[in-house]
């Protein structure tokens, strides 16, 4: 069974940094892209970027280019979303998902989500 398990909820202060993890199992981790999706409170899904763990080919959507960093460690089948200099507007739930290609439109498996709260 394909599973993506994300790290737990986080509460951070403005200016702090955060790394969210997404561990894949039940499939060959290096064969599929991983997408990161943001969902702000009461809002829709926003694709942040995508990574192919095998060669770390990473692409970002325009709103998130230069704002976040995505990485992967194939030795532990885990992808990461790095958020720096956190602001209150980074308060959201972040999801990872397995993508069948680099377009990120077809996402058959999702992590459970990591809620992030940023407040002083």
């Amino acid at each position: 069974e394909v599973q993506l398990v994300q790290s737990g909820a986080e509460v951070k202060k403005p200016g702090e940094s955060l790394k969210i993890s997404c561990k894949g199992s039940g499939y060959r981790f290096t064969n599929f892209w991983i997408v990161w999706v943001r969902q702000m409170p009461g809002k829709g899904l926003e694709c942040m970027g995508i990574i192919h763990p095998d060669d770390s080919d990473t692409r970002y959507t325009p709103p998130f280019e230069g704002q976040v960093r995505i990485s992967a460690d194939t030795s532990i089948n885990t992808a990461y979303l790095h958020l720096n200099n956190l602001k209150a507007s980074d308060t959201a739930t972040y999801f990872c998902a397995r993508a069948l290609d680099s377009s990120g439109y077809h996402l058959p498996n999702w992590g459970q989500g990591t809620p992030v709260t940023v407040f002083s």
Partner: protein
Amino acid sequence: QSALTQPASVSGSPGQSITFSCSGTRSDVGIYNLVSWYQQHPGRAPKLIIYEVNKRPSGISDRFSGSKSGNTASLTISGLQTDDEADYYCASYAGSHAIGVFGGGTRLIVL
């Protein structure tokens, strides 16, 4: 890459059929038969319910069906149930340089 357009909410009664629309352009929905639909219950992760316009993943009820006409994709739920109350998002392939083109989502209210 532009987002796809979905109505903010639709409502229906148990047993009815209801259809959601997802409007794109000739650069995404109109040119590719690569549209997905996701269901998201409050506090839960999205779940893929339709891919490639009209295909259902294993385990998804045949009450869910998808179609496309021109630049607009549609999701139909027949025999509406209270558990269908959720948010529904469409997504489309939009070319090799576009990533994750989603609609804004439609909230389904089952009266």
